[in-house]
């Protein structure tokens, strides 16, 4: 199918190392979101990008998280100097038009990151 895909599905990283997570969104979708979902604690948005912006707008105060969009339908979430607290499921979502909740967000299956 032509849904949102993410890779890798599972990632184990040593504390302090950098990791990169990939998202392939639905062709034609404009806005890409990255969410972090922690077990039992809900989720938070990390960053999002609209249109062809290569550098994403970070929703988090920490500079360790950033996202780039080398192609319109591809986004890479980069986490620098990983911490154990970064262990979570990272979800990517895309929507046809950004900023309007009536435009449904389609989610990928997520990448489960474990930081040791």
């Amino acid at each position, binding site marked *: 199918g032509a849904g949102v895909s993410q890779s890798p599905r599972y990632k184990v990283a040593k504390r302090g190392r950098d990791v990169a997570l990939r998202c392939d969104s639905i062709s034609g979708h404009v*806005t890409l979101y990255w969410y972090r979902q922690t077990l039992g*604690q809900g989720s*938070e948005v990390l960053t999002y990008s609209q249109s062809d912006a290569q550098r994403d707008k970070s929703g988090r105060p920490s500079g360790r998280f950033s996202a780039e969009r080398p192609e319109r339908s591809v986004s890479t979430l980069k986490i620098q100097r990983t911490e154990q607290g970064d262990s979570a499921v990272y979800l990517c979502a895309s929507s046809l038009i950004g900023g*309007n909740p009536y435009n449904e*967000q389609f989610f990928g299956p997520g990448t489960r990151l474990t930081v040791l």
Partner: protein
Amino acid sequence: DQQVKQNSPSLSVQEGRISILNCDYTNSMFDYFLWYKKYPAEGPTFLISISSIKDKNEDGRFTVFLNKSAKHLSLHIVPSQPGDSAVYFCAAIPTSYGKLTFGQGTILTVHP
């Protein structure tokens, strides 16, 4: 600070009965609310939504109720079916800002 809370981590219901999943929020800027359903190894999929100008939205077996004064919403599934067994997330969004805030999720198990 969790702005969207689902206080019941799990719910078990008999097939054919009603399932009621609850969600509370604290941010008064939220004016659009959604429920997502998630199966294992898959991403969340949209189920039903409601705007803050309404207090009820119905779609087949699924009905979402919104109580703005209590900052509470609920999802009713009637009748419940075994295929409804999944994790249900409520989410909220201020319409001026497209990012969703999710609750922790509730695992629904519907027994045959």
